């Protein structure tokens, strides 16, 4: 069963359009959602969370419509900013969020509050950006959600806490019952954590594969301009040409490239996620 299923979703906003969005997030895994700024990551997450409603298409969470209250009980969410009342303390905030969740666990709340070192008497508006993100996480985790949806949870965090957070996500995934779907710009976080990757660009899904598949099937090819002219450019998923030569993202067996009669062999490497984002930018599929 998939944790998230997005089918033919279209959403028209004044400044941006998502058209025919299709993807699914497998249950029990960590899926990273990547794309450059303005590619539609936040809009997609808000559609999944029912903050935005699609003009067309349907979104299901655990096989049920994403509007279902019962379904929302199973989700923990973290946005890129803390969208909560800021003039209250976290304990006051807890008092009115707690009744909405059947599975709310005060012990878990207190455990994470101590782990995150969050004060109970200070108002949220006095918190630093990192503390606000931790607050968001605290409320997302306190009802022991099966699905954690996060929009840039590591943005604005210092490197130490970012690492700790990734470790926490690893811990959360230990029982294999949970699913994590999160967007990020920091692709190194995904290298440490993600099982699957979804790449979005200009409101369209460009790629959805497991990390293993990505490692096996995608190659970063570097060479001279002359070498590029000897290859069909269409063979690449994306190519960038500079004065020094070219680098391209190639999918499939690279034997044919190695057999090309050129002065010097081309360099074939494993691409990083950042390479893939960079090379697939604007690619029409």
């Amino acid at each position, binding site marked *: 069963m998939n944790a998230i299923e997005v089918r033919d979703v279209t959403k028209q906003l004044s400044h941006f359009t998502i058209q025919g969005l299709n993807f699914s997030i497998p249950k029990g895994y960590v899926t990273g959602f990547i794309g450059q700024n303005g590619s539609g990551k936040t809009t997609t997450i808000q559609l999944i969370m*029912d903050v*935005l409603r699609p003009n067309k298409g349907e979104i299901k969470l655990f096989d049920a419509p994403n509007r279902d209250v019962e379904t929302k009980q199973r989700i923990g969410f973290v946005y890129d900013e803390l969208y*909560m*009342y800021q003039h209250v303390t976290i304990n006051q905030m807890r008092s009115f969020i707690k009744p909405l969740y059947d599975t709310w666990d005060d012990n878990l709340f207190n455990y994470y509050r101590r782990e995150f070192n969050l004060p109970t008497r200070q108002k949220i508006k006095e918190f630093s950006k990192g503390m606000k993100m931790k607050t968001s996480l605290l409320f997302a985790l306190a009802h022991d959600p099966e699905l954690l949806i996060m929009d840039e949870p590591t943005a604005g965090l210092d490197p130490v806490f970012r690492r700790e957070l990734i470790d926490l996500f690893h811990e959360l995934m230990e029982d294999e019952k949970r699913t994590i779907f999160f967007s990020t710009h920091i692709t190194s976080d995904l290298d440490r954590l993600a099982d699957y990757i979804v790449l979005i660009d200009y409101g369209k899904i460009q790629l959805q594969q497991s990390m293993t598949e990505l490692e096996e099937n995608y190659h970063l090819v570097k060479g001279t301009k002359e070498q590029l002219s000897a290859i069909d450019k269409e063979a690449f998923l994306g190519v960038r040409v500079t004065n020094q030569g070219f680098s391209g993202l190639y999918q499939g067996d690279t034997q044919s490239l190695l057999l090309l009669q050129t002065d010097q062999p081309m360099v074939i490497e494993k691409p990083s996620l950042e390479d893939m984002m960079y090379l697939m930018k604007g690619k029409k599929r």
Partner: protein
Amino acid sequence: MIKAMQFVIGMHGKSFSLLLMGTLLTFVLSLYVDMSWGFVVLILHYFLFMDILDKQNNNNIQTFVFSLPITRTMYVVANYLFFVLYTACFVFVLLGVYALVKAIIPSINSVANMGATTIVLGLSVLLIFCFLFPIYHLYTGSGKKSRAFVAIGIIPIYMFSFYGDPVAGYVYQTFTTGQIRLFVFIIVSFIGCAISFGIAREFVEKKNGV
């Protein structure tokens, strides 16, 4: 529904307790100093409602609320129920305090038609909310538009409070001086509230919570 009510009371409870306290102080003060307390109460509520709704907009509360396990309709119903409850508290607390103060200090100024006046003011407070709530939900994220509507809204309140007929005084007092007029006012208020609820529900169901 109970969960939704608990949530909305948690969200607004503190602000409205303070609002009720402010109203009480104004009222008690009016028993010593001859002042148009009805007008002060209406203006006080008007600006504090605006402040509460502004806080919701500024903190993107809708994004948060729409992500929680609560349907949008439930959220709107809970808000309206909360305000009806608040109005009831407003009426009973004011009448209670008046009776108490009168019992302790019989020499203070008396308020003519206190029961009817309090009901009319309470319902006027409810109507202010019914006016503001749909507007803020229609124009979230577009502060200027909602503020323009809100600014226009103050005119009827001003007129309602100040430009009464010469015999009865303030407009709101005209509704407190006859049983039929009071009854009509109550009916009209609840119809207004129902229309406002229908509009707000429609807006909230369709809106994007950014």
